[in-house]
């Protein structure tokens, strides 16, 4: 009787695992919005970083969705002025998600590193029918520029962020000899180095990063 019972348990456990495996099985990821982005890091003359300037271009389907119902003087063309209310909605709702931008300062992830965005507006490209959201996130206090890491991702993966193919990251007003790396989750080559000088140490760049969908920017200044 005992061995029969043991078989029950094994059978039930197996069937449960099968069930759990089936419902879990497939991907959790479920993006509906694709964003191609370029990012600029803004430096003060003293070499500290004052903010992050984003330009996020949405995919054409989402751009159509986002612009529906918005009156335009010329059909299919939206001016910056016509898109102003939408830009406001965008930055307002992004606040809840911390602008999907996470700063690591001195090796620590700062939860509230940024003030509310400034200089924000939307552009519409009538040729490609895509929207681009521009906004600048000022750091609450200027961050020492020696070592900084910025990550951009949606933890729930409703939005798929990707760096632009060319020049995704720019350092604006940075001291000489700063090095920047970008790490794209979509790349086959896990790490791509976009170096401003030759003296960087690549081995430091890929230590301990868990966010598998995060687009990472790492900057090192002398």
């Amino acid at each position, binding site marked *: *009787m005992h061995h*029969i*019972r043991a*078989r*029950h*348990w094994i*059978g*039930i*456990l197996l*069937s*449960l*695992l*099968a*069930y*759990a*495996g*089936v*419902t*879990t*099985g*497939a*991907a*959790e*990821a*479920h*993006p*509906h*919005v*694709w964003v191609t982005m370029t990012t600029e890091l803004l430096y003060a003359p003293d070499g500290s970083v004052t903010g992050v300037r984003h330009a996020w271009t*949405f*995919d*054409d*389907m*989402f751009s*159509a*969705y*986002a*612009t*529906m*119902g*918005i009156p335009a003087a010329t059909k299919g063309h939206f001016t910056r002025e016509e898109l102003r209310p*939408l830009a406001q*909605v*965008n930055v307002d*709702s992004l606040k809840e*998600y911390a602008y999907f931008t996470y700063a690591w300062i001195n090796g620590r992830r700062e939860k509230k590193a940024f003030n509310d965005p400034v200089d924000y507006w939307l552009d519409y490209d009538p040729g490609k*029918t895509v929207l681009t*959201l521009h906004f600048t996130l000022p750091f609450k206090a200027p961050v020492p520029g020696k070592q900084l890491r910025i990550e951009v991702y949606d*933890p*729930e*993966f*409703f*939005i*798929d962020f990707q760096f632009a193919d060319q020049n995704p990251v720019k350092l604006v007003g940075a001291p000489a000899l700063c090095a920047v790396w970008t790490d794209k*989750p979509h790349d086959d080559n896990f790490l791509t180095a976009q170096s401003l000088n030759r003296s960087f140490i690549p081995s430091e760049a890929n230590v301990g990063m*868990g*966010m*598998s*969908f*995060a687009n990472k920017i790492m900057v090192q200044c002398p």
Partner: protein
Amino acid sequence: MTGAARIRLAVWAVLIITITLGAHPAWSQLGPFGGPRPPAIGGVAGWVLAEQAVFYRALSGSIRLAKSDGSALWTLMGISFVYGIFHAAGPGHGKAVISSYLFANDETWRRGVTLSFVSAVMQSLTAILIVGVGAVLLGATAKLMGDTVKDIEIVSYGLIVLLGARLLWVKGYGFFGALNKLGTDSASRAAGLERHAHNDTNCHHHHDRDHAHGFRCDKVHHADDVSQHDDRHCHDHHDGEELDVLPWGHAHGPEPEELAGPGGWHRGLSALVAVGLRPCSGAIIVLVFALAQGLFWAGVASTFVMGLGTAITVGTIATLAVSAKALAKRVAHKPTGYGGLVVRGVEFGAAGLVFAFGILLLTGYMASERMGLF
């Protein structure tokens, strides 16, 4: 002996429920520290993801192309179909609710598959209705549409909570009833009455047909004396139903009254509405894009074809849930009361999952899809 067995049983029950909960995407999604965990890339997930991105882009491409080239509509339908299959593998689309619901109940695979298909069609219809009324007739903005979807979501999640609560009530009654009964059973066995150890779950699902109300029946059954085993009652319906549980069982299909009666469709209807009410965000975006391109009807057709693909994925998972349940029951169909108790415990656990999904979705801890952000 009885005490030790009972403790072991309790340990197993807790373990099994923990495994089920722990392995479930809805729970593991919360991550180790309660916060959202970024999804892992690679493996099947990474592949589905990559494919989904490719198809999503092909979708917009073929809608664009269809403006000048009518034959691109066929491409669009093909892509929509495949995208629907892939897309439904992600969270949402009622997979978790439907499969847990099926697991908690004794449903036939036919009903599981039908439930999946009808809910997918319903999701398509809701999406078309929202875009049709909102964007085409009223000229609504994305914000307004997002808010509308949010309201519908709250209703849908509320219904899932109610569905889960009802299941918990019914299945809890069965589980704790069986637990009590087992206590009496063990006592009588200790007195040397081994032959009474009939597994009451053998009969459990046939009552629906006989009495039409599953819940009331459970009650009636538990009021039964342990030694009073109604042979005719159990064995008459046993074979047909058991075979019908699995798709490869070549027995007759479900009787019409089984599907249509108060214990039939009525029961599945609540799950159907709860799941089917919520439109797929992907379909809404495709519809709006098609509208912007002046091809709304192509968008409508694409939405339905996408729904068909979704139904195939959800239906497959529903079939597996039904099969897993049937397997668990079959394994437990041994002349010991414990197996039956475990099945009831698992049903109770699955009912708890439906309830938990509803609560998590309603409170926003589990994001299914997000609209109206930008």
